[in-house]
């Protein structure tokens, strides 16, 4: 398929791996920021093609994984409210809250619907004036423009029965938090191509300069990732620390200006808690006061919900790259996709899920685990 096959070409990927091995004079430690990149790496076995040249550690860029427990609990509470139709991207449905998840709430009679766009949720509100429709606005800068658009349109159309439960986070503050940690090992980043498609890369320039780390804006296909790694290793070997754009087919320095403008119009920067990591200053987006009518937390009085994370889940260390999923004592035993302790085990972008699903062949040290009996079905009946 055009635009995919050429970025999955085996000869090109192996050629890039060879160049990475030749370029590196020592072992470098890189972090890919985005969970989508983590899955490409683990699913395709890219990390195994580079010999000892590079260690990939997996970053916090999984929106499902970093959504704090208390936001999930708020979502669960809203979904149980008989006045509410709760809408969400499919990914969030299996994320465990304190005592259940959205799928279980749906089974108990809660109105939970999967949507593909926040604008579909808005349309649902227009079609169901006797219900209140809440959309779970999670994600990084990638999903922020569409979510901003839904709120902006709801305001334009004066839709009284629509609101959003916001749990937006932004990438640059998380990268700085990782670099500021005393035990940080990250020497270069692969930044998330889709985030930069929206935001551009001006925010990354001061980070590269201050912390002396190369930041390569990288796509999601195997060729993209291998090329991103090669650019990072080349910079590290040359002692350079610059922002470089591998994902030229999508990203410009200024990003997508209309999208950024809309995000800035609807959202403002706030301090935000990250699941497993804790609060990071100015790392999240919340609705501006002029859009307070569309804030589900205010509408339903949920501001004071506060929850402690379970101690046995090491998601924070995994998300900060301090622990590989298979090094977690709960991995594959206490914590499986059927009975997850934390979001990284259930999200399609979660690092724990990637290792659990794709890495059973290897020695116990690399992540072997008992095979859980399971059944497979589809989102809704297909027969």
């Amino acid at each position, binding site marked *: *398929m055009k635009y*995919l096959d050429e970025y*999955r070409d*085996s000869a090109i*990927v*192996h050629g890039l791996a060879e160049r990475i091995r030749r370029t590196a004079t020592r072992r470098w430690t890189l972090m890919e920021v985005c969970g*989508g990149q983590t899955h490409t790496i*683990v*699913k*395709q*076995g*890219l990390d*195994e*093609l580079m010999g000892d040249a590079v260690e990939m550690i997996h970053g916090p860029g999984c*929106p*499902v994984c970093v959504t704090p427990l208390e936001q999930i609990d708020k979502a669960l509470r809203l979904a149980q409210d008989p006045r509410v139709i709760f809408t969400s*991207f*499919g*990914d*969030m*449905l*299996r994320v465990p809250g304190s005592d259940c998840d959205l*799928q279980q709430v749906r089974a108990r009679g809660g109105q939970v619907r*999967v949507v*593909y766009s926040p604008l579909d949720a808005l349309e649902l509100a227009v079609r169901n004036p006797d219900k209140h429709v809440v959309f779970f606005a*999670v*994600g*990084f800068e*990638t*999903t922020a423009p569409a979510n901003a658009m839904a709120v902006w349109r709801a305001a334009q159309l004066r839709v009284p029965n629509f609101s959003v439960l916001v749990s937006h986070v932004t990438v640059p503050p998380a990268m700085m938090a990782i670099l500021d940690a005393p035990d940080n090992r990250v020497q270069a980043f692969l930044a998330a191509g*889709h985030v930069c498609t929206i935001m551009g890369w001006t925010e990354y320039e001061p980070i590269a300069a201050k912390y002396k780390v190369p930041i390569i804006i990288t796509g999601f296909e*195997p060729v993209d990732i291998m090329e991103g790694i090669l650019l990072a290793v080349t910079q590290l070997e040359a002692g350079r620390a610059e922002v470089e754009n591998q994902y030229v087919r999508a990203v410009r320095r200024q990003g997508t200006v209309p999208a950024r403008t809309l995000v800035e119009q609807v959202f403002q920067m706030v301090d935000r808690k990250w699941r497993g990591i804790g609060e990071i200053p100015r790392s999240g987006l919340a609705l501006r006061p002029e859009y307070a009518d569309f804030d589900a937390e205010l509408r339903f009085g949920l501001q004071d919900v506060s929850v402690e994370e379970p101690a046995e889940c090491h998601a924070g260390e995994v998300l900060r790259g301090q622990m590989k999923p298979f090094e977690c004592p709960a991995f594959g035993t206490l914590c*499986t*996709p*059927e009975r997850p302790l934390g979001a990284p085990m259930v999200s*399609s*972008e979660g690092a724990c899920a990637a290792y659990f*699903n*794709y*890495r*059973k*062949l290897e020695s116990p040290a690399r992540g072997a685990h008992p*095979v*859980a*009996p*399971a*059944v*497979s*079905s*589809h*989102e*809704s*009946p*297909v*027969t």
Partner: protein
Amino acid sequence: MTASLAAGPSCPVPLVSNDRVQLGHGSGGKMSAALLRDRFLVHLDNPVLAALGDAAVVPVEAGEIAISTDTFVVSPIEFPGGTIGSLAVHGTLNDLALMGARPRYLTAGFILEEGLPFDILDRVVADMARAARAANVAVVTGDTKVVERGKADGLYVNTTGIGVLDPTLKPLPDAVRPGDVLIVSGPLAQHGMAIMAAREGLAFEAEITSDSACLVPLVDLLRGEIGASVRAMRDPTRGGMASALNEIASASGVGVRLDEAALLIPDPVAAACEMLGLDPLYVANEGVLAAFVSPGRAADVLARLRSHPLGANARIAGAAVGDHPRMVVLHTKLGSRRVVDMLPGDQLPRIC
């Protein structure tokens, strides 16, 4: 009744609306009889069904019979490439055929939701009749029930199939041995993505059509002398190819090697899966056959399958291996390997 009230100034108000299903159609009275005659018998007519006894009486050959039942609740009822009617025929006949049986008879049980328009019901039953006729199988008995509006999603169908076992073709899920060759008869993931696109109103560059098809003619090509070399067969429906292969790997205690480069996924299907973050290996098929065949006859089996339009794209897609027992391992186009396990539940579309 409100529909007929709104229909116009006719007086007296007609008791029976003639454009949609009403609760009275499930009463067992005259309305039920009319429903059966006008909506079912016109399409499915055959002497056994027309006898309208409490049970169908049919002749069977000596030997063993295979029985399979399946219930269909697909939404939407009509989708590109079929309807719930033809799907209910194909699904059950395929289950019989892949056990090696020759399908003979079908039963059909319908649960109809009050308010279902007759034109939809007519299209579904006509489609069911077409599919059964094409497979040369009669629907010999059936049942209808009507439930209140909101208690069902339009209509549900259960079909039960009866087939006669063929001593020349007896595939079993636990009969696969290391070295057996995996043959896949066609492109993957078309049914599941067609349903998802239709249900969600997702528009892709080209319409995705379900592969729903009767596999009986394809299986018939494997009867006789060559049948003994067919160790196991599956149609990878719900849960997709990944789940079907895992079931065989578990039952036979073998590993399965799956070659990514040999799997055919049509471009629009691949594009839809990419957009939604779904793995086509877990998406349902309704017209694909996967068979494990003894290595010496794999080329013959492949040639026979390819001689039929349904198997025109058949190819060797992997093998049973002695390594990694009970595990399916995909050899990627990049030369790496990864485990393809069963999913814990649904595949969920991703956020970004």
